């Protein structure tokens, strides 16, 4: 086909078939039409394409706003909370949710909404920190194992197998006894147990990416291994890594809550949503049963939002993936 033929065809497409295209692809917007019609395609950066696809995923967008609102409320609790922390009003009867006390009053006479906001700081902080740290460690280990193969790869796999056997709860209990009950200890132990699944995902991705031509080209032009991993391999697997990070955050929030519920996590006077549920376990069936609803509801909402954002990210990075 000669150049002029191609031009004519593009001309015909752009003028006459546009309406057909609109019918066939109802979801196509200007950008797609321009590309299909071949008339002056607008260049878009990869980043813009990804953000555009993310913002088309409605649950993810709504979740982002809800999660941001929860984050702002919790970490700005000192300004947002209607009452002071640990403030006990002895004259106030212990009552359920009302206009004055949004989530009611807890067994000790404190405003439950205020307590939830402050406890959320701990839950969210631990969840996010564990998600990020385990992703960084997991990426580093997985990339090294997948890129260099050999002994390092073997060692990583055996290490992972070993920690499938050793119960995580035992590791946490020992570490908390040894280093004392600190948020940092909990974060490090949970991250230390969670990075291995990230490493496995990263490793398998790197294994296939390292055989690609562009990596060979980079190596031929003299790029160092670090540069190849960070500049050529990492950008190509950003999608799975970010999806895994969100899953990690969701998992860590639930894990922390479960541990605190069992009495192995956050210790008083500190509190987290899991700890609040553990404190409220005794009220089941009584007139203060509302105390078990709200901390769990917060956990559910936050984890649901994080999961939806993960879904949105996956669709944005990998539009062909089925779900």
């Amino acid at each position, binding site marked *: 086909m000669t150049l002029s033929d191609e031009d004519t065809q593009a001309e015909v497409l752009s003028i006459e078939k546009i309406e057909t295209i609109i019918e066939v692809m109802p979801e196509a917007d200007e950008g797609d039409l321009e590309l299909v019609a071949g008339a002056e395609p607008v260049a878009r950066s990869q980043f813009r394409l990804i953000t555009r696809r993310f913002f088309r995923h409605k649950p993810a967008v709504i979740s982002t706003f809800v999660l941001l609102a929860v984050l702002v409320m919790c970490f700005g609790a000192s300004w947002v909370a209607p009452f002071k922390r640990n403030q006990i009003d002895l004259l106030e009867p212990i009552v359920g949710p009302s206009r004055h006390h949004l989530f009611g009053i807890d067994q000790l006479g404190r405003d439950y909404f205020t307590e939830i906001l402050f406890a959320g700081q701990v839950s969210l902080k631990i969840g996010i920190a564990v998600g990020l740290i385990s992703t960084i460690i997991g990426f580093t280990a997985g990339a090294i194992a997948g890129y260099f193969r050999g002994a390092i790869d073997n060692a990583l796999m055996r290490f992972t197998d*070993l920690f499938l056997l*050793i119960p995580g709860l035992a590791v946490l209990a*020992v570490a908390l*006894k040894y280093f004392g009950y600190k948020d940092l200890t909990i974060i490090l132990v949970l991250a230390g147990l969670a990075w291995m699944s990230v490493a496995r995902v990263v490793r398998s991705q790197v294994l296939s990416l390292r055989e690609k031509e562009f990596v060979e080209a980079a190596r031929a032009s003299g790029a160092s291994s670090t540069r190849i991993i960070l500049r050529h391999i990492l950008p190509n697997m950003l999608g799975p890594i970010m999806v895994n990070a969100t899953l990690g955050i969701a998992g860590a929030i639930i894990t922390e*809550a*479960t541990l605190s519920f*069992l009495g192995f996590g956050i210790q008083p006077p500190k509190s987290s949503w899991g700890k609040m549920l553990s404190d409220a376990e005794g009220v089941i*069936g009584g007139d203060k049963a509302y105390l078990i609803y709200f901390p*769990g509801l917060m956990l559910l909402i936050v984890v649901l939002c994080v*999961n939806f954002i993960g879904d949105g990210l996956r669709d944005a990075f990998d539009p062909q993936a089925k779900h």
Partner: protein
Amino acid sequence: MFKFVLRRIMFSIPLLVIASFIVFWGIRATFDPTARYRQSRDAAKVIAEKRKEFGLDRPLVAQWWSWATKFVRRDWGTSYTTGDKVTTMVSRALGFTLQLIFWGVLISLVVAIFVGVYSAVKQYSVGDVFFTSMSYLGVAMPPFWFALLLIQFTAVWPKTHWHLDHPIFYFVNLHSTGQSGINMDYIRHLVLPVLTLSVQSIAVWSRFQRASMLDVLSADYIRTARAKGLPRRTVILKHGLRNALLPLVSQTAVDAAALFGGLVITEQIFSIPGMGRLFLTALQNGDVNVLLGWMLTGAVFVILFNLLADIVYGFLDPRIRVQ
């Protein structure tokens, strides 16, 4: 097949040895089994005696070695707190746990396969959308909170509001005192713990089954089967489902191992004296013999589940059987 099994067992033995040593060392470094004799009269003398009795005066490696050599001769030692034999404790607890796992996996599989197949066959129908949203909720739901809500809404609330003598579903242990065997009493005890145990696996597995069923239904041999005039039911169940079950089988084996961990929460909340509770009390007391017995029993189960998965896999896919 036999060779494969043997190899898998051979691989896990060195890992088990290392894991048992790490746990032994970690618990010994942080827990002192003689701590509870500190308040007794002649504390120094009693503790010295007990240290000798437990063998604590010898180096750590020697202690671990004597535990290991006894362990392979089916002497798993005694509990530091109760003085009971670990073998008796484990076998007593295992009975409860096996019941829970059996019912949990069975119910989860049946519901997940039904939901998955229905959602795949009627893709994007109202039912599919409903099940999809439920699965999002199920994945994000903290299991222990779900258990608390179940107790509140299905057991305690109906009892107080309808003035029943007994709650519809019980939430302590698996039998009322004096009852045994499979009867109405057993089922009324079983419903809530099994629901707690299976909410997450139903959510995950049904999504999994839906995806693999959709994959299979778009395959060429399904179209062929429809084209030659087979009834829709036969095509979906015999040609579709049988092939779509394969991925779920391997997933089940992996997750059933995780179910072993999920038991800790379920058994704690519903006061069922199974393996999860055994583990939790042993961990709280630093009872190293019980912990190690628990860990190695758990490891055997993981291996067994994988084995079972391989057998079922061979049953479903004759190509693997031939090899």
